[in-house]
């Protein structure tokens, strides 16, 4: 995915005022990276927070403010990028943190965004855990980190349909972990989440 896909998706989702605000804000951030510190938190109020209407598969589940914030991130200069993104995440509310996690795949940050992904995976906030397993997390987490992220999603009831990289990264160890989790649930007389069946054949007939 590229930021042009995000830009394209936003075309049908912003009012004229919001489009104008976004264009001005991108220019402001490009000229002075510190401007993002007040513009980034204001996005929901200026552009809306509804679901993003889009045909881009990778943007499914995004909100309008996610997409706008990702464009603001992509306007940061290379020199300011890592420190500003770290601070936006550090001082962000849940919506800002989610947008940073989604934006990591759209900016040239290399592996420097990985500590943010790991932080999000430690939280108990389903919005952040889900966003941590987006494109960037799926590409950069090591095998153990990715497996534990997927297991945590199933544990917390986050649908696996919304996370990235499952087809490429699922391995026998992840299957073992999910099977063990399912057996624990059965032993307790509790229901097994249907998503377990995506990777563990003997649970594949569970109803969603």
């Amino acid at each position, binding site marked *: 995915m590229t930021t042009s896909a995000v830009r394209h998706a936003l075309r049908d989702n912003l009012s004229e005022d919001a489009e104008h605000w976004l264009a001005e804000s991108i220019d402001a951030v490009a000229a002075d990276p510190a401007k993002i510190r007040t513009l980034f938190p204001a996005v929901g109020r200026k552009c809306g927070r509804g679901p993003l209407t889009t045909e881009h598969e990778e943007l499914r589940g995004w909100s309008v403010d996610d997409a706008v914030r990702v464009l603001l991130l992509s306007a940061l200069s290379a020199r300011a990028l890592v420190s500003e993104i770290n601070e936006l995440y550090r001082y962000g*509310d849940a919506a800002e943190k989610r947008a940073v996690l989604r934006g990591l795949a759209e900016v040239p940050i290399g592996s420097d965004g990985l500590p943010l992904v790991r932080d999000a995976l430690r939280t108990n*906030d389903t919005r952040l855990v889900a966003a941590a397993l987006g494109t960037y997390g799926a590409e950069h987490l090591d095998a153990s980190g990715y497996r534990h992220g997927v297991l945590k999603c199933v544990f917390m009831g986050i649908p696996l349909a919304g996370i990235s990289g499952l087809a490429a990264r699922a391995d026998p160890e992840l299957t073992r972990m999910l099977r063990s989790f399912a057996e624990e649930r059965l032993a307790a007389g509790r229901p097994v989440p249907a998503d377990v069946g995506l990777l563990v054949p003997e649970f594949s007939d569970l109803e969603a």
Partner: protein
Amino acid sequence: MRIFDPHIHMTSRTTDDYQAMYDAGVRALVEPAFWLGQPRTTVGSFTDYFDALVGWEPFRAAQFGISHHCTIALNPKEANDPRCVPVLDLLPRYLAKDRVVAVGEVGYDSMTPEEDTAFSRQMQLALEHELPVLVHTPHRDKLAGTERTLAVVRESGVPPEHVVVDHLNEVTVGLVADSGCWMGFSIYPDTKMDEDRMVALLREYGTSRVLVNSAADWGKSDPLKTAKTGAAMLAAGFTDADVDKVLWQNPVDFYGQSGRLELSDVDSEPTASFEGNSILRGARKD
């Protein structure tokens, strides 16, 4: 009865409280930043707390059908600790956020010069961020503290209708009524104000510019005091509309001045029945 508790410290409360509040009609609340009983000793301890107020606590509240907002400030007590004061430099980052509907709690604890400085500086931050202000009045020497509070408000340039002066009682309410500021009352089991005294004050001063809160926190307090005050109002002959004005419309009007109240997904029909609601009931055993 739909209820908006304009001052309650949910960080210190349990999920049972959230459920009981929902069942009693609470659909929205504001959690002011205050002290936590145990003193903080670093700026990082504050920012972690603020992060919870804009992140984790709204998430918790939403699971019980309650819309959570907050106010952000360095409280007067900890404004006296030089290890905490530098947090003032970080407040602008938080005052820019969604659901941050006021600067607060600011004001006085022991009326020290350090408290003067932090109070005035945060009034200026309120002006810069176009936010209302929630002012705490001291537990001791309350009348003098309230007079001095109103003087600071006048000097600040913040319009009185953007300010609520909280924890008022029979002795301090008159001053605030005359100032044009909003009058805040914290209904407590033993101290501050109780339901019946509150009803008497509503009879004397009317229902305008009045906010009634539980101010429930980590001490002996009761998150259902808003609902109990509503019941006391009805028993004393106030109408459903009066109760709705005090317990819902007034907080919406006051904090709505921030432009950051988000109540669009709140189920807040004044006459709604809460019996049929299924939020978190029966579905989960853990």
